[in-house]
């Protein structure tokens, strides 16, 4: 008994109009060789010029695709049924639909063009693509540089900040010459220098519930490089509502994570983290520090995933969360499931429009600190008049090592509740930290413990270095 090979309608004219042929052979490869041996005209339709089965030709042994078995080597035995099943693909004349490449671009992108998975068509897709980067900072820097270098035609940038010297340790989009310049102006100049073919669309604004949909709607893919939770939830929800892929990355100290959220194809950020952490629990880079190379790695992953989505190649990072540990140099991967109860992308969403994300993250309810803050100049004058005044530095010892105010007592914020006994409640107390946030927390701890004459140095030691003691280094 031979093996039955079922022939699909389009190939029947090549086998004398029959819908099945009986052939002898021990493997799929042998059967196909015999088939094309007997019916030579079939060969061009089944096999590409390199001898491999064409991508749209699928061969099943009984009910299983040989791609899941042993390909050409898949064994067959008498009585088996082998089916040739078409998959059908096609589309618009892409050369017309996609923008043409200039000679300069062909030369510039030659290393892409010779990659089979990119080629001219892939490069044209990149040129036609519109990618929005939220944040031109640590993550946005490598993402913007690589996407611009790769030839993404339009890059939207959302940022409202000015380049600060402390940015340069990691934000490689900016340079010493652009300190004090708006990040968007600095980024645009750098991108234009790298690749003048890229069109930069700057949005010099904070992304808000009012403007997010209008900005994001105009782009194909969003790369989220934000450093705060309200904006991250805002970007996620807006992307779900507009059905845009959101290429996510975040970093902290020596660790980073990345994923691609696209609600129609997998989970969203809220399926992973349905609620934000309480405010203050997770320190920002400014408070917690970050190793400069780390955003380079995570932002580059975001650029890579963005390019894969544009090209439609490989396995996108959808439904997977990559965790990176720089100290161990280790990548781990977690599977992410779509949450059917997700408030924004679940089966019965409760969030159907953008909400107040500051309030959602518990930030809007910040208490007023009117009257409890003191400026650096006021502190200097008062300290001169009353040398009895006690200045408490609540930063970490390694920060103290970088710069400190002479005469201040160092009690790190974390140790403060246990070391209250070292403080004299009768004296005027001024707490200080780096920029003035932790010292407000210290102030609350002290007030709760019964200290009444406590104030906090507004702007921290940084304001002191600027306004009172210029010999101190700023950090």
């Amino acid at each position, binding site marked *: 008994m031979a093996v039955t090979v079922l022939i*699909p*309608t*389009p*190939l*029947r*004219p*090549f086998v004398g109009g029959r819908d099945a042929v009986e052939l002898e052979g021990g493997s799929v490869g042998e059967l196909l060789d015999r088939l094309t041996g007997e019916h030579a*005209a079939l060969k*061009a*339709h089944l096999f590409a010029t390199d001898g491999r089965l064409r*991508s*749209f030709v*699928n061969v*099943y042994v009984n009910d299983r*695709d040989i791609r899941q078995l042993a390909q050409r080597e898949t064994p067959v035995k008498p009585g088996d049924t082998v*089916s040739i*099943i*078409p*998959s*059908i*693909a*096609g*589309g*618009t*004349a*892409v*050369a*017309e*639909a*996609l923008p043409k490449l200039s000679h300069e671009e062909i030369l510039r992108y030659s290393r892409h063009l010779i990659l089979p998975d990119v080629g001219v*068509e892939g490069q044209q*897709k990149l040129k036609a693509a519109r990618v929005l980067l939220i944040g031109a900072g640590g993550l946005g820097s490598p993402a913007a540089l690589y996407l611009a270098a790769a030839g993404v035609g339009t890059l939207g940038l959302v940022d409202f900040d000015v380049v600060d010297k402390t940015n340069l340790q990691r934000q490689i989009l900016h340079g010493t010459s652009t300190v004090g310049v708006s990040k968007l102006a600095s980024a645009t100049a750098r991108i234009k220098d790298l690749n003048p073919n890229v069109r930069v669309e700057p949005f010099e604004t904070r992304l808000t519930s009012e403007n997010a949909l209008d900005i994001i709607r105009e782009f194909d893919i969003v790369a989220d490089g934000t450093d705060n939770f309200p904006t991250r939830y805002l970007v996620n929800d807006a992307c779900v509502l507009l059905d845009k892929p959101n290429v996510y990355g975040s970093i902290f100290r020596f660790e980073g994570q990345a994923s691609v959220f696209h609600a*129609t*194809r997998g989970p969203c950020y809220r399926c992973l983290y349905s609620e934000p952490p309480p405010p203050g629990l997770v320190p920002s880079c400014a408070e917690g520090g970050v190793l400069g190379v780390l955003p380079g790695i995570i932002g580059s992953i975001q650029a890579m995933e963005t390019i894969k*989505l*544009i*090209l*439609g190649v490989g396995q996108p990072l959808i439904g997977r969360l990559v965790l990176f540990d720089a100290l161990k140099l280790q990548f781990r991967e977690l599977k992410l499931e779509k949450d059917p109860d997700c408030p924004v992308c679940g089966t019965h969403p409760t969030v159907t429009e953008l909400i107040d994300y500051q309030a959602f993250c518990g930030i809007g309810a910040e208490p007023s600190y009117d009257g409890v803050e003191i400026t650096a100049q006021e502190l200097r004058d008062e300290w001169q008049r009353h040398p009895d005044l006690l200045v408490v530095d609540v930063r970490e010892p390694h920060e103290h090592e970088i710069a400190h105010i002479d005469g201040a007592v160092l009690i790190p914020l974390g140790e403060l509740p246990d070391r209250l006994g070292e403080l004299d409640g009768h004296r005027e107390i001024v707490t200080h930290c780096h920029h003035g946030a932790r010292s407000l927390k210290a102030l609350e701890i002290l007030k709760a413990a019964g200290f009444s004459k406590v104030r906090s140095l507004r702007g921290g030691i940084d304001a002191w270095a600027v306004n009172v003691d210029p010999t101190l280094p700023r950090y």
Partner: protein
Amino acid sequence: MTLVLDPRHVAAIGRHGEADYPAEACGLIGGALEGDRKVAVQLVPLVNQRTDSARNRYLIDPDSFRRAQEKLERDGLEVIGVYHSHPDHPPAPSAFDREHAWPWLSYVIVGVGRGRAGELKSWVLAEDRGTFDEELITSEERKVVWQ
């Protein structure tokens, strides 16, 4: 060979193209061979499996093809062609269409300009795979038409 389409088939293909605009719509054409005529009897609209660039690509995966083929065979029909839409482009096959084409099948393309269905043409791959040749469409009303 000529392709015989009922005007209602032409209208249904146009409607599918309009409904899925700006993505490409696609489906299979079931029918029967009558001499050198491929006579369309039933359309099988399918979901475009391409998510990365559905505006200028369509894909009918082998499982969808198989299910559609089995359904048609139960009605005594076979797959005689494929239809798809070209959003904002003329109904002419692209190089990509030709590279991925099967012989013998009718490739019916409808142009959908700004969401409105326009011209519809049919194409057949040359046996040497070198060209896509326009195929004559004969319009005939049939007594029974499945859409």
